[in-house]
């Protein structure tokens, strides 16, 4: 409910564990990849997404219906978790869930930039973060980027956006604004994190996430050969790369791969790195990074059973489920074969 009072991990963990048991497993995914969009919609309606499918069924259909239902269910579940948590637990969970606020802000900015209808923007929002309905409504009502910046004045995104807005006015591209939002989120993610054992474990997970994000960005930059300053995209807080090493390594893929190969992530990412040297596709690497994070998330849930970590572990698993179902639905729509879709899924 709020960051005040004693934290209550027992209650939240019990509820979250029960919900985790209801997530889809191998068996269900195998069934899902062989279904068409309407069958998938029916399948998920019967297994936990009933309210969302019913609420959205009259307005949307096909893959859109599945996608919006998934987003809405995700938002509902994560909102509930924030609602149950109190004290320090709330703070730790909110840190991670703020990434949906960042996502929403970026979506609204892009929407306004491309003159999209407020209704169309609204369905793409994931209301899982800390912003309440009022702020989201005010964001949707904003008709210029300046107005959006104003709505966010009193949030953590206020100052960085204000600074980036000047740059945006000069250049007319969205990159500075989106960067500012991401930076504000990551800055808050790791700052002032306390020191007991579960929190330290949580911190290592967050650092791994930042590292993988940095590595993927760097690989993309190195591969594309574009003349962008890699330091601009650097996210503070990880252990794998520093601003300087990134700037140096982003010029050559081989050196970067070697650097990652020598790091603590070598065991998790090793096979993917070898693939990367042979083939030209980054997808394998991004997949391996996702799988490594998910595996770490699973481990996260069992070492300290009554703490924040099982909750985070559930949040990750749920996110992954939503992404998997979305991949299946989009894949079937695009006419991919079951095997191809299955290779896109991240299952541990």
């Amino acid at each position: 409910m709020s960051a005040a009072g004693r934290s209550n991990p027992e209650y939240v963990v019990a509820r979250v564990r029960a919900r985790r048991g209801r997530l889809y497993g191998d068996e269900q995914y195998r069934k899902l990849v062989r279904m068409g969009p309407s069958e998938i919609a029916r399948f998920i309606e019967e297994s936990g997404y009933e309210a969302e499918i019913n609420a959205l069924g009259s307005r949307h259909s096909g893959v859109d219906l599945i996608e919006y239902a998934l987003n809405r269910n995700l938002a509902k579940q994560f909102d509930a978790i924030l609602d149950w948590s109190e004290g320090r637990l709330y703070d730790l969970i909110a840190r991670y869930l703020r990434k949906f606020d960042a996502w929403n802000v970026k979506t609204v900015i892009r929407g306004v930039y491309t003159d999209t209808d407020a209704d169309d923007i609204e369905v793409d929002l994931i209301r899982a973060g800390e912003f309440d309905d009022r702020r989201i409504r005010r964001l949707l009502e904003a008709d210029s980027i300046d107005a959006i910046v104003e709505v966010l004045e009193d949030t953590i995104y206020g100052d960085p956006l204000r600074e980036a807005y000047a740059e945006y006015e000069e250049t007319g591209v969205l990159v500075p604004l989106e960067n500012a939002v991401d930076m504000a989120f990551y800055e808050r993610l790791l700052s002032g994190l306390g020191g007991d054992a579960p929190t330290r474990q949580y911190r290592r997970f967050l650092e791994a996430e930042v590292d993988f994000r940095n590595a993927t960005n760097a690989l993309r930059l190195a591969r594309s050969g574009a003349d962008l300053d890699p330091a601009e995209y650097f996210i503070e807080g990880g252990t794998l790369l520093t601003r300087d090493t990134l700037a140096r390594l982003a010029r050559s893929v081989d050196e970067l791969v070697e650097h990652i190969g020598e790091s603590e992530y070598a065991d998790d990412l090793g096979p993917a790195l070898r693939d990367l040297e042979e083939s030209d596709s980054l997808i394998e690497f991004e997949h391996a990074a996702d799988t490594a994070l998910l595996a770490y998330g699973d481990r996260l849930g069992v070492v300290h059973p009554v703490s924040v970590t099982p909750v985070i572990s559930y949040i990750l698993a749920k996110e992954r489920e939503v992404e998997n179902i979305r991949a299946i639905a989009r894949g079937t729509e695009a006419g991919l074969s079951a095997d191809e879709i299955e290779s896109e899924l991240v299952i541990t």
Partner: protein
Amino acid sequence: MLELTHELGNVVLTGAFTDPLAAAALATGLAALGAGYAEGGIGAAAVGAMAEDEDLFVNGLILTVLPETLVILALVVVFIAQSA
């Protein structure tokens, strides 16, 4: 509860811990305190589990009162002290 605290204060102040019954009473009280603390956490978790699945009511109830055995065992001390 208040009278008990008062009594406990008296016992400690007058150094009456040589009285086995007083010591036994203190032991029982401390055991009850521990049981209460343990039940707090278990109760919260049990209610959380029940909120997700109502079938867990019986299991939750059993697990919640399990630390109560601590108090029962501590009560044995009183009888031992009485007969001594």
